[in-house]
């Protein structure tokens, strides 16, 4: 369950950049004050997502999609409003967050696991299963800088999804690794969906939103334009676009 009530995220953008004491002091002395423009990346948004539901988030660039996901992932605390959710959030937007490329894959499993809030003991217990799912094989003891980008993403995916998260945030059609791994990861996400995880998907593809999601949320200029059954909202958002 995710409940969002009247959430506003306000960024304060100075008219002129004033990042130093010196300029700040000069301005203050001149009594000109510092002028800011407020920009609401999200403007008084309310909606809720039921447990086990898959919801697609659509909208043009700059609509506030990423900001919304950051609020749900608790990276940004809303300026106003309330967020309630239950369970662990796995943000698959940041696969391998905190990876240290000088360290081995094995060391990075622990590091990434710790970033996601797992204890060292917990990761140690699940290490074999994580490495096995990632398909990294013997490379697990090589520095991550020797990995291909696909391998990095695979390892990150394996760590983040080893335990079923209650809330899953996915960007676009999750294209991680080669065809075989894509099938494997898609199967795992389907499994989560079947066992009651709530899933948020951000995508620019009307077809994949229709295929994956129960409902869709259309954001524009930080406000909700429409929310409802995926087919209806997507058709409204992108009328006449051919479904691939």
């Amino acid at each position, binding site marked *: 369950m995710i409940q969002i009530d009247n959430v506003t995220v306000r960024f304060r953008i100075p008219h002129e950049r004033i990042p130093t004491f010196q300029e700040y002091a000069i301005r203050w002395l001149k009594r000109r004050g510092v002028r800011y423009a407020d920009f609401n990346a999200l403007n008084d948004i309310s909606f809720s997502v039921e447990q086990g539901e898959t919801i697609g988030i659509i909208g043009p660039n700059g609509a506030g999609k990423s900001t919304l996901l950051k609020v749900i992932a608790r990276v940004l605390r809303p300026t106003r409003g309330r967020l309630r959710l*239950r369970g662990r959030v796995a943000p698959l937007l940041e696969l391998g967050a905190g990876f240290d490329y000088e*360290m081995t894959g094995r060391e990075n499993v622990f590091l990434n696991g710790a970033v996601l809030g797992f204890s060292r003991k917990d990761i140690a217990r699940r290490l074999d299963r994580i490495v096995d799912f990632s398909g990294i094989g013997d490379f697990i003891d090589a520095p991550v800088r020797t990995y291909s980008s696909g391998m990095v993403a695979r390892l990150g995916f394996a760590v983040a999804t080893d*335990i079923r998260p209650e809330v899953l945030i996915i960007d676009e059609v999750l294209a991680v690794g080669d065809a075989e791994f894509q099938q494997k990861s898609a199967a795992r996400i389907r499994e989560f969906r079947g066992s009651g995880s709530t899933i948020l998907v951000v995508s620019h593809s009307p077809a994949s939103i229709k295929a994956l999601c129960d409902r869709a949320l259309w954001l524009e200029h930080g406000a909700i334009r429409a929310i409802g059954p995926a087919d209806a909202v997507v058709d409204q958002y992108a009328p006449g676009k051919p479904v691939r």
Partner: protein
Amino acid sequence: MIDRTVATNPRSTAEVAALAYDSDLRPPPFVDELVQLWRYRDLVLLLTGNILKNRYKRSLLGILWMLLNPLLQTIVLAIAFGALFQSALPHYPIYLLSGLLAWNFVTQTTQYAMGVMAGGGGLLKRIYIPRATYIVAVVGNGLVNSLVSIVPLLLVMIVFQHPLGASWAFLPFSLLILTAFTLGLALLLSTASVFFTDSIDIYQIVVQAGFFLTPIMYPPSVLPGPLNDWLLLNPFYLLIELFRTPIYANAVPDAGLIASATALALATLLTGWTVFTRRVDQLAYRL
């Protein structure tokens, strides 16, 4: 045998319910950040170790640099100023090195912490981790560095046949106080560095001036009378003396010094934590 199935729900319902999040019911940041830091303690420890590993992994002499660095610093300064202070300070290199250790711990750690936060705070705007994670890890790394630096200090003491007394038992307390002060200062300065980038440059000047205005490489008696009275207001002096007295003078610092240094460290830590946690939710907006 590897278990290939995905654990569907290994946690008890109670544990999952404990993960319920409500932005309105969150404790005040002053408390919440502490709780989160404790929850993510493994991350703090891992990052502390990684900073150490990364700094020395690729250099030829590896960990030896950690030992050589303070030693070389001491040799250079002892050559330059040794003759000057030899009469006032017998076994001058020991006076110098013990002072340098405390000074380097505080200043290098705080400068490093500022740089990390001003440089984007790593992950802070990409994923949720306790926002003090990096700062605490950097201070932890500074503490380990200081502990390692005690090895070259012992070496110099052997060379000069400087007595090593029971007063060394006081050093853990000195380091604890130094760490508390450094953490507080690092929190304050890192917060400042996010909001004003030039605070890094300003602090650099303060550190440079402080090195010469604090009796690190000279005895306090060198300072002219009026300045000497102000010496007790120099926080660095208090902390350095707290660390140096058990080593150089083979004595436990007097009660007045212990009390004022402890009060200073606790006040700095409390102020730093308060300022940092009051701004903590703005960090992701500003980084």
